[in-house]
């Protein structure tokens, strides 16, 4: 029964993607390209988390408190 349900879900998506209209295919291509640019170009090369260099929350807190208390 379980296998049958999973198979039905799998077939639903498989047939859906297989029979997709040209519009659907174009939109998926855009989504994939967009995600690739975001995660493999922007995120990897341009958006390193500023607090990522600290390993613990305590270090991160200290860094932010230092920033916040230096008003000059």
């Amino acid at each position: 029964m379980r296998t049958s349900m999973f198979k039905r879900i799998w077939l639903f998506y498989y047939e859906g993607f297989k029979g997709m209209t040209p519009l659907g295919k174009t939109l998926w291509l855009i989504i994939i390209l967009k995600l690739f640019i975001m995660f493999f170009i922007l995120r990897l090369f341009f958006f390193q988390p500023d607090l990522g260099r600290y390993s613990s929350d305590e270090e991160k807190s200290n860094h932010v408190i230092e920033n916040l208390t230096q008003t000059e």
Partner: protein
Amino acid sequence: METYYVRTGNEFWKRTAKFWMNIFAVNFAIGVATGIILEFQFGTNWSNYSWFVGDIFGAPLAIEGILAFFLESTFFAIMFFGWNKVSKNAHLISTWLVAIGTNLSALWILVANAWMQYPVGMQFNPDTARNEMVDFWAVALSPVATNKFIHTTTNGYVLAAVFVIGVSAWYLLKKREEEFARKSIKIAAVFGLISLIVLIWSGDGSATHVAKKQPMKLAAMEGLYKSHPGTSIIAIGILNPGKKIEDLNTNPLKFENEKPYLFHISIPQGLSLLVNRKKDTFVPGIEDILKGGYIYTDKNGNEKTAPPIEERMEKGKLAIEGLSNYRKAASAGDEEGKATAYAQLMDNFDHFGYGYIKQPTDVVPNVPLTFYAFHIMVILGGYFFLFFIITIYMEKKSLIAKHKWYMWLAIASIPLVYICSQAGWVVAEVGRQPWTIQDLLPVGAAVSGVNPGSVRTTLVMFFVLFTILLIAELGILFKVIKKGPGA
């Protein structure tokens, strides 16, 4: 439209619903995941801010991510792949659940945005420098959040309604798909008018909240510098470009002599009535807020005298000093020093962000941009009210197809509704400057120490990326529309 199809069994409605679903799919595909960029920016460009708010934003954004994303993505598949695979009713339920999921997504994002405009339900922890949520419901159901949700989603409905009417008018102009176009116009006009009435009602509520919680934003929206009891509201006006807030510091006499408007038509006592329904209410102007001394109602409903901004700056400095002393005392293991510093911090915490302000005029947002954006939004809102009424009337009398001017007006209304929507966001976001979190964290203190060149580079990249996406979206949309529902 799909509901009509399920109720009547008429294939015409199925075809109509499928066409508008395709249009929705294009918008969805272009928009989906663009918010991730914001997450990247939080970590890189806004590390102080994202750390400071982290615990508050975590809950709403996690709920958005889990609940709405899975709800949307699951039923989105049934909506597009399931036409001949599930029953009519199951398909209809999926379509409605996609609509509900999309709105739920908006809810949690807007709760986070509302918290920045009106921070409630949290307690600042000086050990971690984070605001911790102490009352989830105060955050989720704050009056600013609920109002913002209603205002933003109904704005989306109005935008969609005008879009549907405009595209349908194009078909009528081309003498194509006339039944489809007329029926789409009929449904969209009624839906648009109902949504617009709710939009205007929530806009009125929004003005009331802004008056109480962000009075400087309201003053900038109205270009109001010096006020008096029974404050007028500007219906139409042109600001005097010679009146610049910087002059208040460098040349106060010039500032004083410049009139705020070159031309204006105002409604006497209109702003007072808008704010609390009393015609003699004093609604403070920019200079009044800078100087303080007027009576206002605080978060707890108590009447208080507003302090001058300079006093808030002093209290802000005390709060920051309290945080600094707290940290030093904690490092030294000085419990008494910690308690004293904590008391100093919390006594002045409501003014924390003012400690970073260099001069009082820095708390004034860009007045011309806020003023014109607000008035463009209101004028276009009024135009769309008339537009929907004319549309309903003309549709009822079967006049639309006979009047080309109406069809062109409907097509021209599509860019106008986008301008109206964006103008609203300009009011909300430019009007709250310099604050990333109202009164607690100005932009200058919220940013990371990234170099300006990097920010410029990424900004250019975003501009290029989003321009390409816009071109792709318009190209695909025009193609789908040109093919029509019969394709």
